[in-house]
């Protein structure tokens, strides 16, 4: 279990009980809630939020990085997404949905930023090696180059599966696609990458199948 998950789930349980009794915001407004109580509730929320960020920040950042292809923009997108998540934190009801909720917010934030043309589309820096100590650096560079050939939707689906660990149904919900379309994109993405990186092996396997 990722670090911080316990804190997050405890915080969410406490908050959910309060929400069930009187409604979260009603509870905040009720006169019986003294300043101290509200402070404790805020601290509880904050602790739960921090637990969630601890647990998922790295994956969210990497997902944003591969969408934006730029470290600064990725950090900006995740920052905006987490601000949005914090503002809507009280609307979250299921701890199980947290991870996909955060990934969806990052995805939407990226789409918003791209729509506003805030991002100048940058090419991959294919010659630089930024992954965490890859076993074969040259293969990693080739793979980074190969990722450029994927369509935006195929790449997003593949990133969500590999980085986020989501299944096809979850990816479909996050990207607003049908599950079948996600399956097609995932298969095509892997085929395209392997065709590019292992042309001989891939041709042989294609003949076998």
């Amino acid at each position, binding site marked *: 279990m990722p670090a911080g998950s316990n804190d997050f789930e405890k915080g969410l349980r406490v908050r959910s009980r309060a929400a069930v009794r009187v409604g979260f915001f009603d509870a905040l407004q009720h006169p019986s809630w003294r300043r101290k109580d509200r402070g404790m509730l805020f601290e509880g929320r904050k602790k739960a939020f921090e637990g969630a960020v601890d647990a998922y*920040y790295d994956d969210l950042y990497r997902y944003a990085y591969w969408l934006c292809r730029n470290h600064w923009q990725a950090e900006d997108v995740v*920052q905006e997404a987490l601000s949005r998540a914090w503002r809507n934190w009280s609307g979250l009801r299921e701890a199980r949905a947290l991870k996909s909720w955060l990934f969806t917010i990052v995805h939407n934030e990226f789409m918003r930023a791209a729509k506003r043309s805030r991002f100048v589309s940058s090419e991959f820096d294919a010659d630089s090696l930024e992954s965490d100590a890859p076993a074969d650096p040259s293969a990693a560079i080739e793979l980074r180059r190969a990722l450029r050939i994927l369509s935006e939707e195929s790449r997003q689906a593949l990133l969500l599966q590999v980085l986020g660990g989501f299944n096809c149904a979850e990816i479909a919900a996050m990207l607003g696609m049908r599950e079948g379309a996600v399956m097609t994109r995932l298969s095509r993405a892997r085929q395209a990458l392997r065709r590019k*990186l292992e042309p001989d092996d891939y041709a042989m396997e294609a003949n076998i199948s």
Partner: protein
Amino acid sequence: MNCLELRRMAMLDPRQLGEAAMEHAEQCDACREFLSRTFQFETELAQTLRVPVPDGARGRAVRGAASPTSARQPRWMALAAGLLLAVALGVALVWPRNDPMALAGIDFVVFEEAQAILDAKPVEPEVLRRVVAQLGITLPDQLGEVRYTGVCPFAGGFAHHLVVKTAMGKVTILLMPDRRIDVRVVAAARGLAAIVTPVAGGSVAIVAGSQPSVARAEMILTSS
């Protein structure tokens, strides 16, 4: 399960291969080899996607998002606030402010002028002509009828005090031959308008019931 089904499943999500797929791979050399390369490829892919996260980014994200003030306001609000501030600053800079000396002229007219007229010694016409010449201004008939002249204390010194009946009402003029100022200053208070304007040999304060009346007197005085 056959070879085709296994390969389809592996290309879709190699982590989700079931028992049937693994059993097939145990009996099929080609599929076993395919799966071996597939797993190797997936490992490389996952490793490549794991770009390093910048130091401190997580802390910055928490601090930025979960502040007690509930994070950021929309950008348009920040833009609007900035615009409003710029407009307010511009207005504050351009808007005429009451200058203390011009205000002193108004206070003189309101609180002291009547007493000054009673107490002050009238100025000799010759003296007045000399002062006017020293200041580099004129007192043409066009200005109006001079009803009173005298010398009175004003703003820490003495001024030659004139009360003139003009076409636009009463105008008080204070001639200050030894009081030099750098810029023209204005004030409006107590229903009166005032200016103090620099002239060649000193300065002149003009107080009247309206801004146009002050402006007219200033124009006539300084048009020589």
